[in-house]
């Protein structure tokens, strides 16, 4: 079936539902949240979710047509860039591992944007080796008491809830002693501090957890099964990257091409050759992402997705580095070093210097390029894993 590819048409039943929603809730007059709640209740939020949880249990590929139809009617959306962690990571995990109570409680305000989510995974000593994390959760009757430090938390300062992994059993090997929780970011003992980056901005946070109490009812999955749950979350994160179709010459290359066209005095034959090579690389990466999307839509996902994050990171870094060189004297100047706390991430925004510096994070955040190469080599090419010494040792006995 060709759903999701160009020339797609909306299924009649979905169209009927969209029209009914628009008829009952005129986007021109109804307040934003009210419209979004109604859309959720109509099963038009994420159509592949079950009925009653914002969906209709139909293929995910049908969503695009619903979105297009609603956008054409000027209906408001839930500003997905602002709530990306909730949509991309928390929601699928709650759907797969959550209890019915958890699903009913969390998914609707998550989708409407009334409750922002963040992710408490990485720690200063546990980056690529996430399973080595030290944050402890100790059971105390029906609640867990959590102590530790998390880092690289975007949206922590706006978030109502967090997905959290913590060590609940230090006496077993590291992958087996982790449990997955939903953490209330307004709970006592949660302290959020901005973490400033090389760009000058503080897009991320450090989160200090001191005696934070989490009810056992907010546990996702079994005790000790948190690593498996987290893997599912991370898989969703990486699938999400490159998940949005770019137009030709979209993304980082758009800026460099615009500079080239508008400033002929900067052109040299050498820079021309490099720009064309980067333009080609950008176009090919776009086509690779498009091919992965078509495979997904055709119900035959290929392994290409694993490589796309790698490709986009390298591309963004190379193009933004080129752009500064192209700009010459202007490349020596920066927009603003003031520490601000942006609510949205924008890789392509601001000035060329910002783009250059921000892009450096693309190969670190959400899985370093080194880890992704391991994943491709082992899971796609089937090459053997490195010899491991930390798999069968109790976490507490690992060398530090």
């Amino acid at each position, binding site marked *: 079936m060709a759903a999701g590819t160009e020339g797609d048409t909306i299924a009649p039943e979905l169209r009927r539902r969209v029209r009914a929603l628009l008829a009952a809730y005129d986007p021109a007059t109804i307040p934003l949240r009210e419209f979004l709640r109604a859309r959720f209740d109509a099963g038009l939020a994420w159509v592949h979710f079950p009925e009653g949880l914002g969906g209709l249990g139909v293929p995910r590929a049908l969503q695009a047509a619903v979105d297009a139809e609603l956008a054409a009617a000027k209906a408001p959306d839930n500003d997905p860039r602002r709530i990306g962690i909730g949509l991309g990571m928390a929601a699928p995990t709650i759907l797969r591992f959550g209890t019915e109570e958890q699903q009913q409680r969390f998914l609707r305000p998550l989708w409407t944007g009334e409750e922002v989510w963040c992710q408490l995974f990485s720690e200063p000593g546990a980056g690529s080796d996430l399973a080595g994390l030290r944050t402890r959760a100790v059971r105390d009757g029906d609640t867990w008491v959590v102590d530790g430090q998390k880092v690289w938390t975007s949206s922590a300062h706006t978030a109502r809830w967090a997905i959290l992994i913590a060590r609940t059993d230090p006496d077993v090997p590291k992958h087996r002693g982790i449990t997955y929780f939903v953490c209330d970011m307004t709970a006592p003992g949660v302290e959020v501090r901005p973490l400033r980056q090389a760009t000058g901005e503080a897009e991320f946070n450090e989160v200090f957890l001191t005696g934070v109490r989490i009810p056992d009812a907010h546990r996702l999955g079994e005790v000790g099964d948190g690593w498996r749950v987290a893997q599912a979350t991370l898989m969703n994160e990486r699938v999400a990257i490159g998940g949005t179709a770019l137009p030709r010459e979209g993304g980082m290359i758009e800026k460099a091409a615009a500079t080239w066209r508008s400033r002929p005095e900067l052109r040299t034959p050498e820079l021309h050759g490099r720009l064309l*090579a980067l333009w*080609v690389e950008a176009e090919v990466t776009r086509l690779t992402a498009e091919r992965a999307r078509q495979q997904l839509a055709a119900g035959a996902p290929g392994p290409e997705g694993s490589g796309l994050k*790698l490709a986009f990171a390298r591309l963004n870094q190379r193009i933004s580095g080129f752009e500064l060189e192209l700009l010459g004297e202007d490349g020596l100047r920066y927009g603003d070093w003031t520490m601000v706390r942006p609510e949205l991430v924008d890789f392509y925004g601001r000035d060329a210097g910002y783009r250059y510096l921000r892009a450096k994070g693309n190969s670190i955040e959400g899985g370093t390029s*080194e880890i*992704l190469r391991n994943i491709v080599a082992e899971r796609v090419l089937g*090459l053997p894993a490195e010899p491991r010494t930390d798999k069968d040792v109790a976490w507490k006995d690992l060398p530090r």
Partner: protein
Amino acid sequence: MNLLYSEVEDDLRAAVRDVLADRCTPADVLGRIETDRPYDAGLWRVLGADLGLAGLLVPEKLGGQGGTEREAAVVLEELGGAVAPVPFLGSAVLAVSALLGCDTADAGVAGLLGRLASGEATGTLAVPLSAAPGAAFPAAVRADAAGRLTGTVSSVADARTADVLVVPALGPDGPGLYEVAAGAARLTPVVSLDLTRPLADLTLDGAPGRLLPPAAGGSAGAALERALLRGAGLLASEQVGVAQWCLDETVRYLKERRQFGRVVGSFQALKHRLADLWLEVVSARAAARAAADALAAETSGADALVTETAEASGVTGAKEARIAVAVAASYASPVAVHAAEEALQLHGGIGMTWEHPVHLFLKRAKADEIALGTPGTHRAALAGLVDLPA
């Protein structure tokens, strides 16, 4: 834009692959390269005539399979992955595409297409393999009023096994494409870098030729450009096939080879290089698919142009195809070379020997980089197409 493989295309691939697995192993190819028959005529009979690949791009009404460039691309992936010594590129892509840019209502054009499609004759386009789309019409051969051709064309691919040559020549009325019997030309074999696609120099000394009339509203230049654009765009798929073989074979070898008490493929530095290479091959595949799809769309758009005068869409299709070809050709060339170079390096000493087939793929990859326009030539063409002037 459809970047996937259709079921028909998958079936075609399976059929080609079966034949190649039977008759065109690396050992077969290695055994042939230093003989006086570098091309495998028996293999080409099976692929070209029995499977119908010789006429894949020829419309059914002209005796062919009525396939599209998308399918030809799949065939080239497989042929590239076997460095198969058959004249598919020269005959079924270059010669046929040039002829399809001529007036197919002309009996001569139709007749030649029919003979090529049936496998009764094999042809090639008499240009140096390095000829790139977008270049000026070649002036190396002149035709007189009687249609006699004089001149030389060097480094022609698939000429050594051709019965018929399609020769661009400057005639009394300007550029023209001429049909010349291969026997009427003097052919000098070239010691070629690519042992599996050997070249030849052609000398024409008053050789009798027959002018092939251009399509209505077209020209010999447009027909030649049509062929070179298709050649360059589809060669990207051959390069994907070459690169994929190199990657697969290297991964396979490194899963077996042990050094230092470990499978060599478990060393992280090699794993990371192979992961990067995999990403390149995956990306080249997407680019090659896009080029094949755009060429197929242009072909059907051009048909539409003739039958429906849908001019605007035809023009857009042509530009899209040129962009897609420039992107694929400039990207896939270095990927195939890189894959072959990594294959040789990661095989270690054995990869450097004549008895191991990896050198055949390296030579094909490096020759393909030059064939039908270098990456730099294609990127330079892009400058005009996407408004990034020098």
